[in-house]
């Protein structure tokens, strides 16, 4: 029998399924990250222009990709909440935000550490860097808004609207280099065009690291969504206790 994705809107079904899947995803994430980071750090050569700083790519690129994709995932979950009112989707969006914030911070800091020797500056008000900083601030605002509102449904409504607005900056941070052909940040390092893509010796470990970051994101979001579902039930029980 074909399963519909909407069946996972049922918290019990979500908990049953994710409880079985989570250890495997977490294990695969740990394996990919260990292999990718070890491969990238110890087994790849220096770049002829960037020297050893090319090794920062194995953290910076996957973190930056997932910083944007985490917001896109939150956008989809927020739209599902706004349209279909499935609580699990609102809680999944909430669960993803601190993970996305962490990836955004990693991308910003590793980018600055790479930029200092390569560009001669830690920071520039370049379109991509600036839109990434604004995305970081949106993550902070999103997390603060969830915590500031006591009514869970009202918080989900307002944070969903904030997520829609912030999506502009998530998209800008991805395409800023193409929109404004200026600034320090170069174009995408990854491309389907073999001429534009990074050399294979860097590409394969990078691919493993990207897979590791994707799996880490999925594992953390599943774990944190399960926690949010339990926290919601706990809140209901405590409320019932107080009223008894």
């Amino acid at each position, binding site marked *: 029998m074909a399963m519909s994705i909407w069946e996972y809107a049922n918290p019990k079904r979500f908990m049953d399924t994710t409880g079985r899947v989570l250890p495997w995803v977490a294990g695969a994430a740990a394996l990919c*990250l260990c292999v990718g*980071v070890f491969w990238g*750090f110890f087994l790849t050569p*220096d770049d002829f222009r960037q*020297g*050893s*700083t090319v*090794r*920062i790519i194995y*953290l*910076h690129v996957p*973190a930056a990709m997932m910083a944007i994709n985490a917001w896109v995932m939150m956008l989809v979950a927020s739209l599902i909440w706004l349209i279909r009112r499935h609580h699990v989707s609102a809680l999944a969006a909430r669960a993803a935000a*601190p*993970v996305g914030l*962490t990836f955004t*911070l*990693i991308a910003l*800091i*590793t980018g600055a*550490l*790479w930029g*200092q*020797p390569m560009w001669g500056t830690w920071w520039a008000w370049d379109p991509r860097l600036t839109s990434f900083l604004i995305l970081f601030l949106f993550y902070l605002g999103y997390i603060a808004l969830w915590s500031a509102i006591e009514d869970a449904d009202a918080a989900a409504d307002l944070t969903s609207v904030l997520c829609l607005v912030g999506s502009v900056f998530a998209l800008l941070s991805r395409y800023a280099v193409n929109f404004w052909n200026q600034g320090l940040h170069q174009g995408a390092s990854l491309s389907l065009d073999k001429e534009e893509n990074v050399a294979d010796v860097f590409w394969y470990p990078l691919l493993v690291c990207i897979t590791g970051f994707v799996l*880490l994101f999925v594992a*953390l979001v599943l*774990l*944190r969504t*399960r*926690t949010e579902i*339990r*926290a919601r*039930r*706990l809140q209901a*029980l*405590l409320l*019932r*206790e107080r009223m*008894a």
Partner: protein
Amino acid sequence: MVELPTPFFVAWLQAYLGKYAAQVVGSYAFSLILIVAIVVFSVWRSRRVRRALAEAEERAGKAP
């Protein structure tokens, strides 16, 4: 003033990564610390909430 010997691993990293060793090691250290922090915090909160829920459900089960 006594000059302490450079630990072997640090000396090896400096030789391996050259003049950008601080930036590369800094990037890896910062990223790994943040990743470990979000994982540890998520697992810790998950366990705390699960334990509190189990206690609340037990109390609810005993309630008349």
